[in-house]
């Protein structure tokens, strides 16, 4: 008897990729558009880059929209690297730099595990291993109104999505996906949480299923939630 492990993160990750395919014109606040041409950049993709490397020369590319993720920034006509790591490309046009750290730098559309630190009238203060605490508005839940605000005690573990992430403001979170559905976000009950590096959590979420998770799934039935901020929650399988 083999139970498929329920992996909330993989569902959300897949939905993210789908949303990019459907809405290429949608610009999220932390990403920048650039005028580009048809030719894709040189083969720095999937290679190690260090801060200062020029990744794309935009004069060669025109009339193309590309999206920049973590670790890249636009300097007039070039895209240069800010963080050391591996350059990644996800079709059609999203680039970002992947690196592994013990601390997390918030990035929009990341799914993370947060711990409630404080409750305010307007939002919850949530710790997501970022330099600052993040805000989770009390209404950012499916069907959330002033009347049915959830009561989270201090120390509650939540599976949330990052909505806004500027380096000058506190990040903002949400327990809904873009369409407004709950989609497995919210409080995680029972189980055990441990912390890892961001690289390991990305590996656990990688697209052909990580062999560790498969091997575990053959022996036990479990539930796992992996946050891109380096937190992993495991529990027995709630049917």
């Amino acid at each position: 008897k083999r139970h498929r492990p329920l992996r909330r993160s993989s569902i959300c990750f897949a939905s993210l990729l789908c949303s990019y395919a459907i809405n290429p014109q949608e610009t999220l606040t932390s990403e920048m558009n650039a005028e580009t041409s048809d030719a894709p950049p040189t083969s720095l993709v999937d290679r190690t880059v260090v801060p200062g490397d020029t990744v794309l020369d935009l004069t060669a590319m025109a009339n193309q929209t590309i999206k920049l993720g973590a670790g890249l920034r636009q300097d007039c006509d070039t895209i240069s690297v800010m963080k050391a790591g591996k350059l990644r490309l996800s079709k059609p046009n999203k680039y970002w730099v992947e690196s592994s750290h013990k601390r997390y730098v918030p990035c929009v559309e990341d799914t993370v595990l947060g711990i409630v630190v404080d409750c305010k009238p307007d939002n919850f203060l949530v710790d997501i291993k970022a330099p600052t605490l993040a805000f989770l508005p009390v209404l950012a839940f499916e069907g959330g109104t002033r009347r049915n605000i959830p009561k989270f005690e201090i120390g509650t573990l939540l599976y949330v999505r990052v909505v806004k992430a500027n380096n000058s403001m506190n990040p903002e979170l949400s327990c809904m996906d873009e369409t407004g559905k709950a989609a497995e976000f919210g409080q995680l009950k029972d189980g055990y949480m441990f912390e890892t590096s961001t690289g390991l959590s990305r590996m656990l979420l990688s697209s052909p299923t990580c062999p560790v998770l498969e091997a575990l799934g053959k022996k036990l039935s479990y539930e796992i939630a992996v946050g891109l901020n380096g937190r992993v929650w495991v529990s027995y399988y709630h049917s």
Partner: protein
Amino acid sequence: MEQRLASTSRMTVNERKFVETALASDLRVDGRRPFDYRRLTIKFGRSVPVYGFTASATEDGSSEVQLGQTHVIGFVTSQLVQPYRDRPNEGTLSIFTEFSPMADPSFEAGRPGESAIELGRVVDRGLRESKAVDMESLCVVAGKSVWSIRVDLHILDNGGNLIDAANIAALAALLTFRRPECSLGGENGQDIIVHDPEVMEPLTLIIHHLPIAVTFAFFSEGNIMVIDPTHKEEVVMGGRMTATVNSNGDVCAVQKAGGEGVTPNMIMQCLRIASVKAADITSKIKNAVETYNTERTLRKVKRHSSTVTHQVSVPDVITKDKQAENIIRHQEEMIHHEPDRISNCDDEMTVDTRTCIKTEGNSRDSCTDPFVGGPSNWDPYLNKLSSNLVGKSQDLLGPLTIGKEQQEESKSNKMAVENSPEYATISSNSETLGVSGPRQQTDVAKSLKDAVKSKARKKSKASATTR
């Protein structure tokens, strides 16, 4: 406010519940059994020679202890002070703790917090009240001057159970600490002369027994007890007790500051378990200290052999090379030869020191080592010099041995007489090194001035490159 909230480490309710339910079935989060200690590693500081005229600054009395993820280092230093009035013939022992902010987000630099003071008190009480360190042997002049031993404990990483790790670090550092030998001298026999560790071997402290601290954590209203709690278990635990016992079964100290109530039966059980664990940890500490001491004596033996051969071969070199003469003069003054003795017996010395050419060749590099302190590769002048001397000494080896044999046959008696006073003066000189403590300062001053006068550039270059 938000910064402070952001930086403290947090436990989720999931983790709390998990730790408690797992303990109810005798399972700990890191897979240990309830009465198992984590892996203990004890390391010591290595000897670091300081080049120049001063003695080598050894790292005796420093230890680094790792108990799982908890990391503590201890340093022991000593100083001559006036004793307390009510104990005029006892030394003093003081423990200082430093909770570095890199150990835990909740540690703040500056004033020690409550847990820091408690840790210092527990370690101090274990050592002082049980009279583990002999205080009366630290007295130099009763009522005037005693040794004050200071133990500094630095917490580098808080993985739980700091008290046990800090206690082991303090004990390991005290066991390997050596204080300088001192004696009374001077004009009226009242001045205290502290002997240089190079000149007289420093002494260990007299430690009668080792008080080992064993910490217990209580959960679920005192029903579940574990040893050596980790950081997560410490957040969840209801109460904590530390029992300091030694391997003889004596209870040196018990500390239970607040927390859940515990039955007397539980406390007696804890003390019994603690004495078993104390024997185990005592043997680990003693093994580590023994390894360190054998290494240390091996290091000392090597250095002394090089200086002995060097002493005897000194005058040989003077007759050959003018430049070598100046270097060798510095070396002489370092080991406190009287310069005039060399000039007097030059003739005899040239003859009977030919026998030492063999050893001189081998030990040339090691002879220069105490002087410049390290491989002479970086100093081209010294390299050239050493190869020069080796070459010359090897040239002379052939004809001179023949000459020596001839002379030996002809005037064996005279040589024997001459040899013995030379060797006698050499050996007596080495014995008087110890007593020449008071003159050490003046000798050093004289030699520094000579160095500046004769070969100022060479001296400053050597010291510049070693610094």
